[in-house]
């Protein structure tokens, strides 16, 4: 089943989230980890890019990384699912391939 993409950098620091969204094939999934979780916040700079991409891609965010950064789940863009490390492992096994956008 499709591809899992991980993004670990803040969209206001680097271009990885945008490149990932540009090149991820529809039907795939994107998991935001580490500083990538800032891309999941409502009302932040690239929030529209993420919202628009959600028609073709499923978005996930790593909960422990959100908590570490003091981001409560009610600040997350609607439709992004929060997963823990077990959920990360499940996403990897449910998708055929994982691509890390470094």
């Amino acid at each position, binding site marked *: 089943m499709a591809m899992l993409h*991980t993004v*670990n950098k803040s969209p206001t620091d680097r271009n990885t989230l945008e490149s990932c969204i540009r090149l991820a094939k529809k039907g795939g999934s994107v998991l935001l*980890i*580490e*500083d990538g979780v800032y891309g999941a916040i409502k009302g932040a700079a690239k929030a529209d890019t993420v919202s628009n991409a959600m028609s073709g891609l499923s978005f996930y965010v790593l909960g*422990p*990384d959100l908590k570490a950064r003091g981001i409560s789940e009610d600040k997350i863009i609607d439709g992004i699912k929060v997963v*823990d*490390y*077990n959920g*990360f*492992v*499940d996403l*990897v*096994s449910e998708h055929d*391939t*994982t691509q*890390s956008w*470094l």
Partner: protein
Amino acid sequence: MKLSVQINEGPYTHAASDTAYQFTKAALEKGHEIFRVFFYHDGVNNGTRFTTPPQDDRNLVNLWSELAEKHNLDMVVCVAAAQRRGIVDPDEAKRNGKDGNNIAPGFRISGLGQLIEAGIQSDRLVVFGD
């Protein structure tokens, strides 16, 4: 499922090693097999026993060594990357005329072919980096 993990950054400076550790631990606890953990680029710096992190923080090198012992993990440090960065085992020390070594328990130094093999043999390869 058979998974492999690649780690491209050293401990502490980037979150890569932390995230990879939590991921690997979760995968093992869920019953997956970890075929190999491959340390590349600055990731080789996870394999030195000379670190002494502050007492109130995690000791990443020890965490990896302990996880490897508990689950019989194959943790490979890339030889070419290690030579550039000064990670040395007894064999490498002899070969390159070094007067000591710093490899941590559970890590072994080997070639990049081990990464390709991990890609071929594993159902999934997950890369953690900068």
